[in-house]
């Protein structure tokens, strides 16, 4: 029976939008809050703000060599440092689309949209390869 309480299935695009909105909010808050902790000196920093003008004109390879700043996923181990903590916000923002794609994959499969679901799966793979730093 088609009653008035019949729920309309949520379109996968709306799910995608909802997840993206939540992810961006979390990411931007993390980015700004960690920057405030860094610049106000609440947390110790790996490279102090006053030292940056001496190194920010160097190519990234030389910068890492001179400062010993983390690359790859090494930042995870140094989240107690204000400037490194900022990477958490960047990582969240860079993961939002991956999470959205993962979220809509199954609804697309269930809807029988095989071509789009396959492309979504391939895209997830590409983004995960980029995120793991496997190609470094």
């Amino acid at each position: 029976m088609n009653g008035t309480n019949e729920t309309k299935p949520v379109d996968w695009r709306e799910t995608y939008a909802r997840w993206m909105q939540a992810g961006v909010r979390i990411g931007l808050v993390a980015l700004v809050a960690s920057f405030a902790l860094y610049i106000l000196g609440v947390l110790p920093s790996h490279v102090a703000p006053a030292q940056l003008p001496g190194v920010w004109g160097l190519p990234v390879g030389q910068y890492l060599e001179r400062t010993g700043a983390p690359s790859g996923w090494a930042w995870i181990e140094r989240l107690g440092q204000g400037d490194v903590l900022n990477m958490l916000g960047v990582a969240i923002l860079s993961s939002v689309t991956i999470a959205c794609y993962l979220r809509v994959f199954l609804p697309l499969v269930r809807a029988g949209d095989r071509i789009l679901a396959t492309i979504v799966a391939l895209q997830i793979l590409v983004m995960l390869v980029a995120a793991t730093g496997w190609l470094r």
Partner: protein
Amino acid sequence: MRRRALAAAAVAAFALVPALAWAAPATASSLPWWAWPVLLFGVSFLIGIIAVAAGIGGGVLFVPIVGSLFPFHLDFVRGAGLMLALCGALSASPRIIRGGLGEMRMVIPLSLAGSVAAMVGAHMGLLLPTKVLQTSLGIIVLIIAAIMWRAKERESTGAQPRDPWADALGMHGLFRDPKTGREVEWHARHVLSGILTFTVIGFIGGMFGLGAGWANVPALNVLMGVPLKLALGTSGLSISVINTSAAWVYLNQGALLPMIQVPAILGVIAGARLGVHVLRILTPVTARWLVVGVLVLAGARALLQGLSS
């Protein structure tokens, strides 16, 4: 009234940016460290205002201007430009999807090719010597200025010959303009050429951190026959996917400096809020001419820096 005056002042200040960029030394000066993020916020704020008025993303202006005006290495400027474009696209995407202003069925296939290319471009860009990178950036920015100068976007895309790839991927539909209520039936064409174009755009965007709206919109509208407003939204959605792959490359390589990226992102977001008011004193065409002028100067400066280093 106050907002209009503020917007007029911002436009005038933006027009002075290329002159400053031309005259500024590329090396660090005696300014205290905190002056640089403050100045960066100010320049990014102006970029945000004009970018909205001209209907482009901020990344294409950010990299050549900040690369010329500030003492930061191009590696970090490109990383910040990419994050800036990513944040802008991510923030706008939910509104675009809910408003029916972008088509995910276009975004998903086109972005797959674009994101692979962006990842490769980002890796290559970080391997190139600074001189080669700066010279290439100058040339690319001048080409972008030429594309923006010559681009003639179409409100109506006319009769659409059917493309079997568009049928297979579901790249067609009925677009309802939320402002006018007018409905346009559309059917994408030249899908394979579109995928190839997005591959090239993704590579350039990843390599130089430029964002991609300057090329995505003409590719979707003129080449693929997507209605202009739908092309604008679809371009924004695709940037949020394509730049994700490249952003991870910059993050993994250590090319993202909080002191550069955060003031830049906040400045552009704040500027974009005022940009809506600029539209009252500046038509999109005038704003675009202003952007082309700034790009020509910033591109020429980057080219000369690259050739003389």
